[in-house]
């Protein structure tokens, strides 16, 4: 019997070995996947006991802070997020819901700083000594006065405004309408209330239109086509192009705005009067590969390197069945792509990047929302420096485009963007057709920069589904946004 008993013991040793092996599997070998599993919210809950750092606007206005809440019975102290600016910054700042373990926007992309996870050695020692644990503050580049000007300009209409500082890539404003109120979304940790609030949100209010909506860019895209043309060396602003009305492209006649027929026009005139026929000819002449190259140099087809979570920044380009295709694909109607129609899907951020590159001698800076990260004692942990992202075009091409775009505002379709102060604005209007032309309801664009001689701000504005043209609806919004950005001292 004793040998059987010993065998039995060996069996149990093996069985317990299996237990140790499985425990090791979960604790050491496969722990990473488990820790990051969406169902596992331990990290977020743990973070709720540490006050997250503040998120601040460029002038120090508090966009998000942590409020200490004491539970009545247990006396446990925990922190909840508060957003004093309501819905204005929601699409960019996002939210951090400690109870449900969900985050979005800067709250998610800057979580390591805000939660105090990313610490430099000096601060770490300091934290140990003081025993005081709190997250770092994130100061953004967003200017509240510019944000306000943008949202007032949209005046409740669905749309988006993005304003960049061309020389640094700082995002001065990024506005999305409609949006949501993060305080209502978190609802004090009440899941049922939060769910009820979510149900009231419509029209993609949880998304950031500025970075997530693919809009047809309309005539604002002619800036990209022009850049491709001038960069190719085959065109100058004075090259004559056939701008006749109703020329046939892809076996369908392409009409000019208002049915005008200017005949042969210079490239400059074509841009100022937004002559579709001329740009159709230019795009076809340049060919798909040249247009594709030009687009990629502006950052199309790539995810803009903005410091938001990757899944909240969309790539712009030519969309077919929700996938990006190249300009030389057989599915692309090149002439209509050249005038900003066909299958183009472009975010307001991307258009702001286009105009920003024009404003900065063709040099496209990396757009960024975070200016610096400071610890609780004000020590700077991280300072974001301007960084070149791409050379979008030749400097000479950019200079020509600036002068041409100044003409657009001076004497062309963008007249309503004129500041009237002697500071010159350059820009381009766009009226993107939504399919039903007769209804006269279009997506209205304006992209622009100022001052023309030494641009300090670049802006892209879109107003969705409105009557009129980009020059009448979007340009005035751009005007106030540009003015407020210059007043706020952009580009200094």
């Amino acid at each position: 019997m004793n040998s059987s008993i010993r065998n039995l013991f060996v069996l149990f040793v093996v069985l317990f070995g299996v237990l140790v092996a499985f425990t090791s599997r979960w604790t050491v070998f496969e722990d990473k996947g488990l820790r990051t599993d969406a169902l596992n919210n331990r990290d977020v809950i743990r973070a709720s006991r540490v006050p997250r750092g503040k998120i601040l606007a460029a002038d120090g206005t508090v966009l998000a802070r942590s409020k200490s809440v004491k539970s009545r019975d247990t006396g446990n102290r925990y922190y909840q997020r508060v957003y004093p600016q309501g819905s204005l910054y929601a699409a960019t700042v996002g939210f951090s819901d400690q109870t449900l373990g969900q985050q979005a926007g800067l709250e998610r992309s800057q979580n390591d700083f805000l939660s105090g996870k990313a610490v430099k050695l000096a601060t770490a020692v300091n934290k140990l000594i003081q025993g005081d644990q709190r997250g770092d503050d994130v100061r953004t580049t967003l200017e509240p006065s510019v944000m306000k000007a943008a949202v007032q300009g949209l005046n409740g209409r669905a749309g988006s405004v993005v304003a960049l500082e061309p020389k640094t890539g700082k995002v001065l404003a990024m506005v999305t309408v409609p949006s949501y109120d993060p305080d209502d979304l978190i609802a004090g940790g009440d899941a049922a209330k939060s769910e009820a609030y979510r149900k009231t949100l419509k029209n993609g209010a949880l998304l950031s239109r500025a970075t997530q909506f693919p809009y047809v860019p309309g005539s604002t895209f002619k800036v990209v086509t022009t850049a491709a043309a001038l960069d190719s060396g085959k065109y100058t602003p004075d090259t004559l192009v056939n701008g006749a009305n109703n020329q046939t492209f892809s076996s369908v006649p392409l009409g000019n705005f208002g049915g005008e027929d200017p005949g042969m026009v210079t490239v400059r005139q074509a841009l100022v009067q937004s002559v579709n026929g001329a740009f159709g000819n230019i795009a076809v002449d340049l060919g798909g590969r040249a247009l594709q190259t030009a687009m990629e140099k502006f950052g199309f087809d790539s995810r803009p390197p903005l410091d938001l979570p990757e899944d909240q920044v969309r790539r712009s380009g030519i969309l077919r069945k929700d996938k990006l295709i190249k300009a030389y694909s057989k599915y692309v109607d090149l002439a209509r792509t050249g005038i900003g129609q066909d299958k183009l899907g472009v975010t307001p951020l991307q258009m702001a990047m286009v105009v920003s590159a024009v404003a900065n001698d063709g040099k496209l800076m990396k757009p960024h929302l975070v200016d610096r990260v400071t610890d609780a004692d004000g020590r700077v942990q991280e300072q974001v420096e301007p960084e070149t992202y791409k050379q979008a075009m030749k400097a000479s091409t950019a200079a020509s485009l600036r002068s041409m775009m100044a003409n657009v505002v001076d004497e062309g379709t963008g007249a309503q963007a004129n500041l009237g102060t002697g500071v010159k604005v350059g820009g381009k209007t766009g009226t993107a057709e939504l399919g039903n032309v007769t209804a006269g309801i279009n997506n209205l664009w304006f992209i622009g920069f100022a001052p023309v001689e030494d641009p300090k701000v670049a802006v892209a504005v879109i107003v969705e589904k409105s009557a009129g043209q980009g020059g009448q609806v979007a340009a005035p919004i751009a005007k106030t946004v540009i003015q407020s950005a210059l007043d706020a001292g952009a580009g200094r």
Partner: protein
Amino acid sequence: MSARNREALALLPSALLVTAGFAAIFLKRDAFLSDASLTYGGVFLALCLVGHLVVRFTAPNADPYLFPLVAVLACFGLVELYRIDESFARLQAQWFVVGLGLFAVTMVMLKDLHLLERYRYTIAFGSILLLILPRLPGIGGASNGAYLSINVGPLSFQAAEFAKIGIVIFLASYLRDTRQVLIHGGRRFLGMSFPPLRHFGPLLAIWGVAMMLLIFIRDLGSSVMFFGAFLALLYVATGKKRFPVIGLGAFALGAYVVGGRVGHVQDRVEAWRHPFDPELFQQTGGSAQLAQSLFAQADGGLFGRGFGQAEIGLTDQNGVIGTTLLPAAKNDLIYSLITNETGLLGATAILLAYLLIINRGFRVATLARDPFSKLLATGLTSVFALQVFVIVGGVTKVIPLTGVTLPFISYGGSSIMANFVLLALLMRLSEDARRPT
């Protein structure tokens, strides 16, 4: 050094451990050291000394390591329970007093274990009754779909905890009688000799009982425990591997057929196969328990978060635990909590402590001087080991998770009392085996 002095010395570290554990939790919670940690340590040491004195007088030659090992486990459990909720620790401490009392009574009253053999059918009948009672309306109750507890007024009683001892006693005495017949067998069939049907019948009946358990109490864990102990005994009694192998096959077949039809068992198997399926996770009685158990272990890592540092739930403004992160942390999932706080190293230490107890238990069996004692020691040790395997295997996703307690660590009066009786029986067997003649 005598066995008893060794035992007394070995108890000191566990008292120190309990003191240190409480100190750590106080430091975490209030940032100051309350003398309560010393009180808990002192009371715990006093209790252990009482148990030690009982052994010193009733079984001076018994194994010196069993009792201190149990004390280490108990103190670990006490610290973790205190960390979940002070009131659990206080109640558990009371159960320890009751359990020790039962231990003392068993040690004093039961001088001759062979007495048990005489009442084996009474014991067997009583045990089966205990197992069926939870299914009866009025006094039974289902928890998580399994019928495991008997509720009389405010008291809830885990029947299987006591039944496991009764059934092992019965099996040990039954197999002592029939083992010769089983070994030498009658007919040959398929190249193997099989015992006559008259003796084989009762074995089939036991298999039937295990299946019945599966249907009636709907609990895979307990049936694995009981049937596993039976197979272990059958193997030791006959020394032939084919019996347990055939038995295992029959059990697997039965479990497959029956388990596939009993909803609750089915759910458990589904949860085991897909713990991270969001739908199963949301379902009541779904996979949340297992998934959270694994999350907790991952959170612990190699070294653990430290005592009191695991996330078990979040209290909202009203002090209500809104999100329970680790359900049943005090009983079924306590191993996950220990892993979370003390890491793989702590968990391995716990398993090692269990393995040492199992080792001492089998040592008692090998040293025992008569077949009944050998079989009883084997059976008690096996059922104890299987219980640990079923629950730890359940929370680590080795087997489907079913609700049995982790002996001496989980919260629960029935578990503590029954396991102290089991310990008393092993100590008595050990005394008989090691007493100089």
